[in-house]
């Protein structure tokens, strides 16, 4: 289990050139930054696409270059980029890579070479995806769910090349995720330092670890559907394609099942929500604890809640398919399982709030983002209870209510955690603090702005405004007030989008010119702040690996000389985890 502390076995394999240090790097910290940087760049593309969509919705017909085809291409690429290439890559490839070895007390991932390959294969998947903007017909506009038969038939934008590049890119991404995932899981299981039992690991690691297990088991479903759809498109098989006419012509397809694709897609798609959410849950738990100077409430419950949510996430997928139709008993089952998953999730929310209760709350920028996450996740989660019920879902499923729900719960909420987490660990990564004034400005605009964008969408949805339409003009059931609201949402979205560039500017400026950071500026107890150097050097821990004597939540311990006790402080300093808590 624990890594051997082998002073005798030390060997110097430090990178010696710029290329091996920063390009073909096998250092988990550099790979984390590579993953994070690429994800942020591709995320900015996704952001621009969303603003282009909003221009069309808010001011239909004003921007002539946004025709119906392009609109659907923007929708599709925005969705896929944000869910897969930004959030999944950033949480697992970025935070997973950076935090797991440092928080577990390891020198690196256990398979550094494969870790390096993982990033470069991920980058290849991004390049292939971006290439689809430049092929004849442009990227696919099939919607991010890529449902057949329309995804590969004439009439859907990008049905010739765009869809092929999308599927190939996804397959490459899955290979990258698998290589990374093998590393994260094995490192957690095999390379923890002495004393770092599983039940002493910070919840960030638990969240990322469980999400990685989910990814390793769920991405194969996307792989299966991707391979089969690619063959349907390129070699004329009929896995998913029924006998259909396309543009008045027989297609040659016969007997395939579009519903089979939907089952496979959502068997991946729902755990994907938790692949993004569980790392966010873990990180938020740590940020709350550090910035409220209090042990996380109910650590063991929090761990088990993460694991139970991970398990349940595999038996709720068909709630995305209530409208597709299914045996009523299945609908009943999936509605019940969906509502049950709210129980461990609610436990987590209660425990976060109870951690704040009578805490010494510091309204630092990471804490602001954390509190904003709690509110956003709560409102996004509560609308999930509506949509989990078949009879409520069916009328709402095709409306903006769903757009509001999933953007709150798995778009905005995890991104707030990303911002908080980057601000929290930036001093460890770069040795400098992120500029606080810019950080606060970015926080308030993002938090209030996203509420102004998404909260009204609930009303639009309940009013019956359908999603997926290119142009909302000329429908009697959509009143003028809805158009005004759409205009308002678009203006706010443009402003919030522009302010995200300020965050990127802050990252670059602070990394070069920011205030020098102390080794442990937040006075955090977890192990990553105990490295001998800031930023940590190759191998992380100098000559001797750390030894851990307590959990990561020893804050405000009565009788202690300081308000936190580091995980690697001598055992006699106290602050051990409760034994039956």
């Amino acid at each position, binding site marked *: 289990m624990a890594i*051997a502390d082998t*002073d005798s076995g030390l060997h110097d394999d430090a990178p010696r050139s710029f290329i091996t240090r920063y390009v073909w790097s096998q250092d988990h910290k550099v790979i984390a930054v590579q993953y994070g940087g690429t994800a942020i760049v591709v995320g900015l593309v996704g952001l621009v696409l969303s603003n282009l969509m909003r221009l069309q919705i808010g001011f239909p017909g004003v921007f002539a270059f946004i025709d119906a085809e392009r609109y659907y291409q923007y929708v599709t690429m925005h969705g896929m980029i944000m869910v897969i290439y930004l959030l999944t890559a950033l949480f697992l490839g970025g935070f997973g890579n950076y935090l797991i070895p440092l928080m577990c007390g390891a*020198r690196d991932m256990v398979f550094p070479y494969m870790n390096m390959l993982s990033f470069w294969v991920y980058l290849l998947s991004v390049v292939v995806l971006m290439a689809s903007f430049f092929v004849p017909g442009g990227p696919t506009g099939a919607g991010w769910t890529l449902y057949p038969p329309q995804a590969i038939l004439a009439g859907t934008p990008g049905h010739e090349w765009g869809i092929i590049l999308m599927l190939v890119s996804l397959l490459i991404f899955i290979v990258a995720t698998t290589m990374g995932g093998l590393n994260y899981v094995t490192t957690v299981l095999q390379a923890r330092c002495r004393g770092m039992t599983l039940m002493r690991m910070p919840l960030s690691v638990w969240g990322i670890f469980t999400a990685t297990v989910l990814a390793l088991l769920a991405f194969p*479903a996307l792989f299966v559907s991707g391979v089969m759809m690619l*063959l349907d498109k390129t070699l004329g098989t009929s896995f998913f394609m029924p006998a259909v006419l396309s543009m008045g012509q027989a297609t040659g397809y016969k007997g395939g099942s579009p519903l089979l694709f939907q089952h496979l897609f959502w068997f991946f798609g729902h755990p994907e929500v938790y692949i993004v959410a569980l790392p966010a849950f873990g990180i938020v738990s740590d940020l709350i604890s550090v910035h409220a100077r209090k042990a996380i409430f109910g650590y063991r419950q929090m761990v088990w809640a993460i694991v139970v949510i991970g398990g349940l996430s595999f038996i709720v997928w068909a709630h995305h398919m209530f409208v597709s139709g299914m045996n009523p008993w299945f609908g009943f089952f999936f509605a019940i399982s969906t509502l049950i998953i709210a129980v461990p999730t609610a436990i987590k929310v209660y425990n976060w709030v109870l951690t704040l209760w009578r805490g010494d709350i510091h309204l630092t920028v990471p804490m602001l983002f954390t509190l904003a996450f709690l509110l956003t996740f709560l409102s996004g989660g509560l609308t999930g209870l509506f949509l989990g019920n078949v009879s409520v879902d069916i009328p709402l499923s095709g409306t903006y209510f769903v757009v509001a729900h999933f953007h709150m719960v798995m778009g905005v909420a995890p991104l707030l955690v990303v911002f908080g987490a980057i601000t929290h660990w930036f001093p460890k990564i770069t040795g400098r603090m992120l500029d606080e004034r810019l950080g606060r400005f970015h926080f308030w605009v993002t938090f209030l702005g996203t509420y102004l964008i998404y909260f009204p969408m609930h009303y639009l949805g309940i009013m019956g405004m359908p999603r997926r339409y290119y142009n909302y003009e000329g429908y009697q059931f959509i009143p003028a007030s809805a158009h005004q609201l759409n205009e308002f949402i678009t203006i706010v979205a443009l402003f919030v989008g522009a302010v995200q560039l300020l965050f990127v500017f802050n990252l670059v400026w602070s990394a070069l010119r920011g205030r020098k950071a102390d080794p442990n500026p937040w006075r955090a107890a977890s192990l990553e702040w105990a490295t001998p150097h800031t930023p940590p050097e190759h191998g992380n821990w100098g000559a001797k690996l750390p030894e851990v004597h307590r959990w990561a939540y020893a804050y405000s311990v009565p009788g202690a000389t300081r308000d936190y006790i580091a995980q690697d402080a001598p055992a006699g300093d106290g602050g051990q985890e409760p034994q039956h808590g």
Partner: protein
Amino acid sequence: MASAVLAVDGVVRERAAGTGVWVFIGVASALFTLFVTAYVMRMAAVDATKIALPAQLWLSTACLVAGSVLMEWAARAQGSPSAHRLLWAGGIATMAFIGAQLWAWQALLDAKVGLAAHPAASFFYVFTALHGLHVLGGLVAWSVAMQAGAAWRVALCARYWHFLLVLWLGLYAALAMVTPDLARFICGTAAP
């Protein structure tokens, strides 16, 4: 103090590799389980027919059984002079498996059963191709084990080869035994 040291010692690397192989076996199992599930669901459709599997598959199965057994013997014989020869033989038997699978493909193509002929044929090619890729990946690890010669690498090869064999037997059984009627029974759909 040397600023850059990486002390992942041999014991840890060996344990990590062992865990890594188990995790990978889990991922590959998920992948093929989902494929077989999709196969059963697709075989319940009206256009599904059972595929007449080519006889070469018996030969390929025998080769993979031999590969698996030889890898196990090589792992158990570590330290003895025959170990390297057994490892060689295991690799050769596995390459013969790939050859026999390609021969089976040729036999099907000669019988005018192409990839898009019918659902069972489509799944046959996809199953054998993806299983073959996993075998080729194993052969890359095998070539490393041949050169490095560490006992734990050979043991991991043996473990992975047993998995490849069980996986192939499962796929073979699914292709041979899941008739459209059985698939419809499993899916609860009525016969057309």
